[in-house]
């Protein structure tokens, strides 16, 4: 197994240290107020640690400013929990998706921008014609797709998704998670997924960091963390998740044995 390079890194002397490896999908779990979002925001230079450093590809970017910060913003994008709150209600979807290009002085030609916006919409499973719609005309799932489209617009290397499905309907959650997995594959994105739902993280991530009270409790590969959690707190968290009984194929105990026709 290749040792993956550290892509981003937060080492706050008074708090926690966590690295994100290139190409991985890292889950951050923990309960309300455990510091998940704070840690991720430090990683994205949206918050500055009171002490300690933030590194990007080995470079200390803790105090990055100006053009360097803009470049870092392009390379590292955030997907929000509430897709409605992160879109300007007075801007069409097309305008919202064109914004990143304008801000960064890319694709100055209107037609090229419109073409790229159409491609982005299709990439996240939406109809390109939706560019003319306003956010309130879209469902929550569609808005979250737009949020993802905006996050991938400038070809970032790292995507941080902060509770990207917790505001969505059960049947829509799976659509968005599947989309994120597909985009990771297609674009080779590194993903940091913040979630309180341990099953979602289990499904999406290679490695998991467990946080509590602003500290890291345990960091481990996903299989290891779920099969043999080391920290008591991780065990407690896992034990608290309500289980959905496994579907039993007919014939198996607890299966459809009540039916005489189950052998068909």
């Amino acid at each position, binding site marked *: 197994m290749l040792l993956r390079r550290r892509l981003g890194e937060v080492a706050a002397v008074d708090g926690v240290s966590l690295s994100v490896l290139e190409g991985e999908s890292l889950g951050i779990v923990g309960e309300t107020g455990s510091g998940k979002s704070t840690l991720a925001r430090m990683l994205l230079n949206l918050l500055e640690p009171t002490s300690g450093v933030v590194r990007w590809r080995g470079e200390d970017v803790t105090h990055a400013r100006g053009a360097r910060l803009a470049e870092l913003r392009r390379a590292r994008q955030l997907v929000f929990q509430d897709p409605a709150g992160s879109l300007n209600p007075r801007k069409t979807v097309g305008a919202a998706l064109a914004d990143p290009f304008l801000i960064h002085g890319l694709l100055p030609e209107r037609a090229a921008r419109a073409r790229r916006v159409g491609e982005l919409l299709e990439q996240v499973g939406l109809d390109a014609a939706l560019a003319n719609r306003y956010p309130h005309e879209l469902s929550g799932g569609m808005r979250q797709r737009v949020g993802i489209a905006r996050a991938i617009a400038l070809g970032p290397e790292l995507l941080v998704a902060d509770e990207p499905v917790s505001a969505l*309907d059960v*049947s829509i959650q799976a659509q968005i998670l599947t989309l994120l997995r597909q985009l990771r594959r297609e674009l080779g994105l590194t993903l940091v997924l913040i979630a309180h739902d341990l099953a979602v993280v*289990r499904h999406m991530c290679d490695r998991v960091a467990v946080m509590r009270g602003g500290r890291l409790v*345990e960091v481990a590969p996903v299989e290891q963390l779920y099969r043999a959690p080391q920290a008591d707190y991780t065990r407690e968290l896992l034990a608290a998740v309500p289980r959905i009984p*496994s579907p039993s194929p007919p014939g198996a105990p607890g299966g459809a044995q009540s039916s005489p026709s189950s052998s068909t």
Partner: protein
Amino acid sequence: MSDAAILRVEDLRVGFATPEGLVQAVDGVSWAVAPGRTLGIVGESGSGKTVAAMTAMGLTRGRRTRVSGRVLLDGEDLLSAPPERLRALRGDALAMVFQDPLSALHPLLRVGDQIAEAVRAHRAGVSRAAARARAVELLEHVAMPDAARRVDAYPHELSGGMRQRAMIAMALANEPRVLIADEPTTALDVTVQKQILELLRRLRDELGMAMVLITHDLGVVAETADEVAVMYAGRIVEQAPAAELFAAPQHPYTWGLLRSMPRLDAEAGAELVPIPGRPPSLIHPPSGCRFHPRCAYVRERHREVDPPLAPLAGAGAADTGHRVACLLSETERRAIWARLAQGAARRRSWPASSSSSSASRSRAACCCAGGSARWRRSTA
């Protein structure tokens, strides 16, 4: 569950007149719950779970609301009951716990006073002192930490889990015979959720309460409910004893829910199978089977014929209480589910992904965590 039922909803329909048209939020729903039992109601947002429960409590009455059917509490029809009778029953025989405790607790009153008030409202002649003692007792009953002190706390001084406990204590003030809990744990962390669910189960068993538990979480239902009703677009599409529903689900929508939920026991690499599309309009619902635009097994006829919720035919002489609203034959459905369940079993035994063997090792990270982390906003 049928004869012993204490609360029974029969062919309930609830519509709301809106400028866009009539929103038929609940469209012919029947369920019943017996003392000491739990009915779980699942379904996605907007399927009518809350409206049905609120209507049963008489909380949706209004000029724009169109209601028909019957809601029987111990044989007494609540839909035709006068408002004062309903007020007398609410908080007494019938109580409700909401998703958001702040909507049920008055922000400016001490929780103990609110609970005491709930006691005195239904028990004429109970002294203030006795009501307050009862409030402390109730808070202890719901395992509120340091109840004797917290009785004087304001809602904002309590954590989310404590507020939920206070609201449950208030709901239980008069030992209701029926408790309707609408997403009682959705806003809570898993460890707190676990405590609250344990509390509700314990109280149900101790008091012999009938409980209706509304949730979108199949895991919560699996661990708490005796019976489950799955709602879709204002209807119940499947209803069964909980064990039966998870072992041998019969409706394509139930399959969709089960297959689209990430599982803790899944193997790495397992794929979710999302339900395509999204929930339909309740003003202009799809023709025929309401699930047909999203169903992988739709046939031409299903676009026109609206399937009733019917008992399984082939389940032998005994009625297990399993009902489903789907036009496929039971044999077809069993065959499809057998295929899906086998597929799922195969997915669960996939080899672990390569990433799990990566070099990083699990560590209990206390070494680098000195004090609690403090941060300030970036000025950039």
